[in-house]
């Protein structure tokens, strides 16, 4: 167990990270992500209020739809990345990172400026279980009356799972199809056990409980940013390749001006994916070199269990950010060759 944003979290279960990772890609993995924070925003100004604090366009959401977005600073850097769920026209649920929940909550409260909204940090009220992988729908369907095949990607329904009332969302952080179930915190154990049973845990093709390490390798293969690694208060959304969640034309929001200026001027560095081409494993925070000159840092580096390669992401100056660019990673004093490649590293067949 490790401390993760104040939560005791398992790094891996007995099957081990590689097996957990592979099972999620080929069948299903179950992740207890109850550490994630939930902030409830209710009131007639819920949409304009959240739209002013986040970079994506909340007005584009319909009831039952979720959106990947970011809370931004006035400089366009990232307070946190989050999911915005529209429960109704006057009710949004923000799902934020565990380690940043308190910071986000203070930030959001401090930006409340007369809008008609009621804010609640509901993090302790929810558990969140993520059932991910190609078999997720088959496993979850017998436990719920909801027609899961009708829930589209980044949409959610209210309903019950094993008789427990909650939200079932077709979202995830693994690059696979799957669902995230939000339910009352005291039902976490019941739902966890039920989903493992329904997924035939123990069978060679059954669901496996997965820890933080597999969650990290899965999201990295899928090219997804992790707060504190690829994005933080020193990186802008544009540098992090998250221009697609920067809706500069939606109207004013915190950080819009800085992002618009940076877009016009052009970014100086960019987040890229790389594959190690020599023997060695790149790790977080190692230096990136081009022509013997230190040009950037690895934000996440790890073996990729499904791709069977050693991969990573790094910030490099835009002039060295093209696919095919040869770079070196300083792996504890040894320079190891790598090449910039397209991200995501892994994309599932739909």
């Amino acid at each position, binding site marked *: 167990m490790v401390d993760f944003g104040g939560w005791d979290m398992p*790094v*891996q279960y007995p099957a*081990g*990270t*590689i*097996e957990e*990772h592979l099972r999620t890609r080929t069948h299903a993995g179950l992740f207890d992500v109850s550490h994630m924070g939930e902030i409830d925003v209710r009131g007639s100004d819920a949409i304009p209020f959240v739209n002013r604090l986040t970079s994506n366009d909340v007005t584009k959401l319909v009831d039952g739809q979720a959106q990947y977005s970011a809370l931004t600073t006035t400089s366009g850097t990232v307070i946190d990345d989050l999911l915005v769920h529209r429960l109704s026209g006057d009710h949004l649920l923000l799902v934020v990172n565990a380690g940043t929940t308190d910071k986000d909550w203070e930030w959001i409260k401090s930006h409340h400026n007369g809008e008609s909204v009621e804010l609640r940090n509901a993090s302790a009220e929810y558990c969140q279980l993520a059932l991910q992988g190609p078999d997720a729908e088959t496993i979850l369907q017998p436990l719920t009356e909801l027609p899961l095949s009708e829930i589209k990607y980044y949409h959610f329904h209210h309903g019950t799972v094993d008789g427990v009332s909650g939200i079932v969302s077709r979202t995830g952080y693994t690059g696979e199809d799957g669902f995230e179930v939000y339910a009352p915190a005291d039902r976490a154990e019941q739902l966890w056990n039920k989903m493992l049973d329904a997924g035939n845990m123990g069978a060679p093709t059954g669901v496996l409980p997965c820890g933080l*390490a597999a969650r*990290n*390798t899965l999201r990295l293969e899928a090219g997804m940013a992790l707060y504190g690694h690829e994005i933080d208060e020193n990186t802008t959304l544009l540098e992090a390749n998250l221009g697609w969640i920067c809706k500069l034309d939606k109207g004013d929001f915190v950080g819009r001006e800085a992002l618009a200026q940076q877009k016009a001027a052009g970014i100086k560095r960019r987040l890229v994916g790389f594959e190690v081409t020599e*023997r*060695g*494993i790149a*790790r977080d925070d190692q230096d990136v070199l081009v022509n013997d000159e230190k040009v950037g840092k690895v934000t996440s580096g*790890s*073996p990729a*269990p499904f791709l069977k390669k050693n991969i990573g992401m790094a910030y490099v100056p835009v002039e060295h950010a093209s696919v095919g660019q040869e770079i070196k990673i300083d792996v*504890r004093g040894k320079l190891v060759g790598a090449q910039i490649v397209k991200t995501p590293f892994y994309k599932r067949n739909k």
Partner: protein
Amino acid sequence: MANVPEDLHYSKDHEWVRVDGDEAIIGITDYAQNSLGDVVYVELPKAADEFSASESFGSVESVKAVSEIFTPVSGVVSRINESLADEPEKVNSDPYGEGWMVRLRMSNAGEVDSLLTAAEYEDFTKAESE
């Protein structure tokens, strides 16, 4: 419960030593491989490299982390387990057998006596995991 064979010597850095004449065979313990998780990469020294006791002679990497490996005794490398380059998972599946790492020609065989016995190592790991 981790496997701790009686006939080996142990270091507090979780290496084991098997004495074979004037040579020492070195690897990491069952307890160590279990805490590391799936081993995906082992970096070893070259034959003829010389090390003093407690010096780092390589590293073992799991998906999540890198750990240095230290030689519990001084000596010159006579052989390394080259098969770990392609099958690092042997460190997990057979840490005291096929997962061995290095053979050293010991320069001071007396150093072995200062290492932990199986019983001492078992107590040490118990205390460490509490």
